């Protein structure tokens, strides 16, 4: 049953707004802490893409799995992971979700169905296909949402995965997060065919293009895809057009695009502002409640930062643990 915007009641609209705001404030804080030297290495922020993570998760059920690249903090928190353990991992503390041994790109929460967090471009695509394989092998109606970007979409292993997924009727939704740039390379400079929703055609995988700046568009497309996948055990593809406000990572000054372009998205197409406008227009929320939500999120983030900063680094004995399991 595909639900429409009008079916999302006040409570749920607020919930999705709050969740997107949580992602936004979390990533803004991560950016700040990185600049202060508290987070090291690579840090790829999800700012601007919040509707994608929240819209995907809203359509899933317990038992489904999600996998993505290194731009994973937002997706992980969207699956229900506690922000403080993600923050502690970013700060390399023992209380981090990977005990401080993974960092920004290697976070997992299998209990919530979140399988990472992968540093090598495109590697998550066959892995996600394997998660779907397992769901089917175990005779469940679970599916896997496998997320990758407009850079990863040219990886050979993506097409190897598409082929097996269609050949074996695997329950996987491939989501291409097209934010227009693979690091500093725009889609027009990297791809001969930029209609990414058509990339599955050679393998018989239907695709659809979605406005990733709008929560409802993502949610509706996902609901539709999820229903089809659960019913038919077939792979599907969604090209979700989105935008990241910051550079590829914290080390990227993003000189390859104009400030005007960023401003255009931020001022006219921001996913959180869109949801806020929708709720205000439909009288689903008032200003006072909005302020309360902002305060609540601020507290969650503050607590996450305090928790992380007060946590110790891993014990030195952890250098030699978790190499092999029993």
């Amino acid at each position, binding site marked *: 049953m595909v639900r429409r915007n009008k079916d999302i009641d006040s409570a749920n609209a607020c919930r999705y707004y709050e969740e997107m705001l949580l992602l936004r404030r979390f990533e803004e804080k991560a950016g700040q802490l990185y600049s202060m030297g508290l987070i090291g290495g690579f840090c790829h922020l999800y700012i601007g893409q919040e509707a994608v993570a929240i819209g995907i998760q809203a359509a899933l059920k317990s038992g489904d799995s999600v996998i993505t690249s290194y731009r994973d903090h937002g997706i992980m928190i969207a699956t229900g992971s506690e922000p403080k353990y993600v923050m502690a991992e970013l700060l390399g503390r023992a209380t981090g979700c990977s005990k401080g041994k*993974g960092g920004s790109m*290697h976070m997992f929460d299998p209990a919530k169905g979140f399988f990472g967090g992968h540093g090598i471009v495109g*590697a998550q695509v*066959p892995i996600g296909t*394997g998660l779907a394989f*397992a769901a089917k092998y*175990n005779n469940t109606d679970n599916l896997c949402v496998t997320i990758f970007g407009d850079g990863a979409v040219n990886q050979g292993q993506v097409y190897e995965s598409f082929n097996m997924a269609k050949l074996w009727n695997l329950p996987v939704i491939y989501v291409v997060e097209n934010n227009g740039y693979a690091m500093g390379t725009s889609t027009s400079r990297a791809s001969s065919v930029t209609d990414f929703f058509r990339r599955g055609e050679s393998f018989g995988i239907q695709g659809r293009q979605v406005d990733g700046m709008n929560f409802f568009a993502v949610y509706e497309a996902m609901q539709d895809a999820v229903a089809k996948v659960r019913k038919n055990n077939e792979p599907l593809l969604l090209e979700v057009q989105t935008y990241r406000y910051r550079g590829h990572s914290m080390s990227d000054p993003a000189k390859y695009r104009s400030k005007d372009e960023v401003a255009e998205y931020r001022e006219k197409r921001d996913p959180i502002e869109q949801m806020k406008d929708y709720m205000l227009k439909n009288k689903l929320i008032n200003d006072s409640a909005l302020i309360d939500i902002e305060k609540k999120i601020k507290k969650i983030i503050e607590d996450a930062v305090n928790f992380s900063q007060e946590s110790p680094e891993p014990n030195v004995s952890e250098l030699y643990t978790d190499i092999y399991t029993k």
Partner: protein
Amino acid sequence: MALITIREALRDAMAEEMIRDEKVFVMGEEVAEYQGAYKVTQGLLERFGSRRVIDTPITEHGFAGLAVGAALAGLRPIVEFMTMNFAMQAMDQIINSAAKTHYMSGGLLTCPIVFRGPNGAASRVAAQHSQCYASWFAHIPGLKVIAPSSGADHKGLLKAAIRDNNPVVFLENEMLYGNTTEVPDGEHLVEIGKAAVLKEGNDVTIVSFSIQIKNVLIAAQEAEKNGISVEIIDLRTIRPLDVTTIINSVKKTNKIIAVEEGWPFAGICSEIAAIIMENAFDYLDAPLIRVTGKDVPLPYAANLEKLALPQIDDITNAIYHICKKTS
């Protein structure tokens, strides 16, 4: 006890483990309907069906990654690479996804996968189809690397590998598949990480693995005729290496020869040399000698291929050299 070929021993190991645990499945090129490119998986499709014995397209990078995903989700895949040469296509998934994820996740995720297939030179299949990958895979913390030589060890170690909850690379050899040996029936398990002393001796230790064990045994017999008592160690597992067994032997014989089919630079013999230096330097009466494949891509011509691989004479010469040196 049964007198069976090594390919049958491998097949039995897989079949027994697939009966024992419903989560175990096999995937690879030609493993199902073709009955296996080298007939190792013969009969498995008929016995277990296509849900559990799966023919893949020729896409090693993709299906290795898919199998890793299945393993992270709790299944127990056995991935057959038609030869380990083709595993190079899948290297990123084997190393970065399978081997490292348990550590990177702080112990949260495990990857109970077996990657198996023929390793090293076969016969006249030339450079791209003949490389030994023992050294490449053994380099990686997070992988276990096994290379048996006897039929009993192929069966016992493959069963152990399938039951192991870590990613295991299981290196076979095409030229060994047809060997008939005595293999114990039923629940025969061999401990991963334990070498076997095939023959006790006092004058020199020879350590090797996989197909070179055959050459070592023959060379040792030759040397025995000339009054040299040779102790032979079959590593069976490359990583984790059974350092204790090697060191105990060297403490007794004071001389060691390491033999491998692969190239000399940064090979397994190099690792053994370093370990001897660190743990048994004072027990040595002579430096370690390495007998390895020659440092060349493997040629096709029959005479050149023979020269490029370790020969029995190379080993006997090493034995005489190392013993003469100390007399």
